[in-house]
C-alpha cells in the first residue's frame, strides 16, 4: 500500500470524529429567538406564581395551575391566560428546535429534555410534577 493511499485511508477513517465534535443543536433561528424573548418577558409575570405555588412545572415540559387558591379570585383568569400563552410558546419552541435541526420527529425528545432541565433549574420552593405527581422543590 503506498503512502498517499494510507494517508487518505486514515483521513477517511478520522472524518466521523470531526462530525461528532461538531454535533451541536441549532437554536439560533429567528423563530426560536422570538419565542425566547416572549417567554423571557412573560417570566416577569410568572415568577411570583411559581414562587407561591400557584403555577408549577409539568412533566411534559409545560406549566400548569397547581394551586389556584394561591391567586386572588379576580386574578385567576389572568393566570390561566399566562399559563396558556406560555404553553403555546413552549410547544412552539420544542417544535421549532426539532425543525431547525432538520428532524421534526425529535420534538418529543426535545420536550422531555427540556422538562428535566426546567425542573433542574427551578428555584427552591417551586412546584413540579414527577412520576408520582406534584412535588415541591
Amino acid at each position, binding site marked *: 500500500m503506498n503512502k498517499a493511499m494510507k494517508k487518505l485511508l486514515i483521513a477517511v477513517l478520522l*472524518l*466521523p470524529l470531526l462530525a461528532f465534535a461538531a454535533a*451541536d443543536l441549532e*437554536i439560533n433561528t429567528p423563530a426560536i429567538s422570538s419565542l425566547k424573548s416572549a417567554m423571557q418577558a412573560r417570566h416577569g409575570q410568572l415568577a411570583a406564581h411559581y414562587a407561591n405555588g400557584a403555577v408549577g412545572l409539568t412533566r411534559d415540559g409545560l406549566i400548569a395551575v397547581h394551586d389556584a387558591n394561591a391567586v386572588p379570585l379576580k386574578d385567576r383568569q389572568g393566570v390561566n391566560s399566562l399559563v396558556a400563552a406560555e404553553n403555546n410558546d413552549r410547544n412552539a419552541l420544542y417544535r421549532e*428546535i426539532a425543525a431547525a435541526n432538520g428532524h421534526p420527529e425529535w420534538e418529543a425528545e*426535545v420536550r422531555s429534555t427540556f422538562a*428535566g432541565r426546567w425542573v433542574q433549574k427551578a428555584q427552591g420552593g417551586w412546584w413540579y410534577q414527577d412520576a408520582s405527581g406534584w412535588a415541591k422543590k
Partner: protein
Amino acid sequence: MKNLTGLLLVAGIVVLSACVTINIYFPAAAAEKAADKIIDEVWQLKGEQAAPQNDAPKESK
C-alpha cells in the same frame, strides 16, 4: 491495488453510515446543552453563571 480500492470503498461506506447514524439518533447531550442555554436566557439565570467570573478580580486584591 484492487484490494485497496475495495478497502477504501468499505471505509467510505462506514463513514457515510456513521454520518447518517449521528443524524438519526437524538443528540441527548447537545439537546441538554441547548436547553440549558435557552432556560438560562428565559429565566435570566445568567447572573449565576457570571458569578465565578466576578470572583476572578478578587485574586488581585
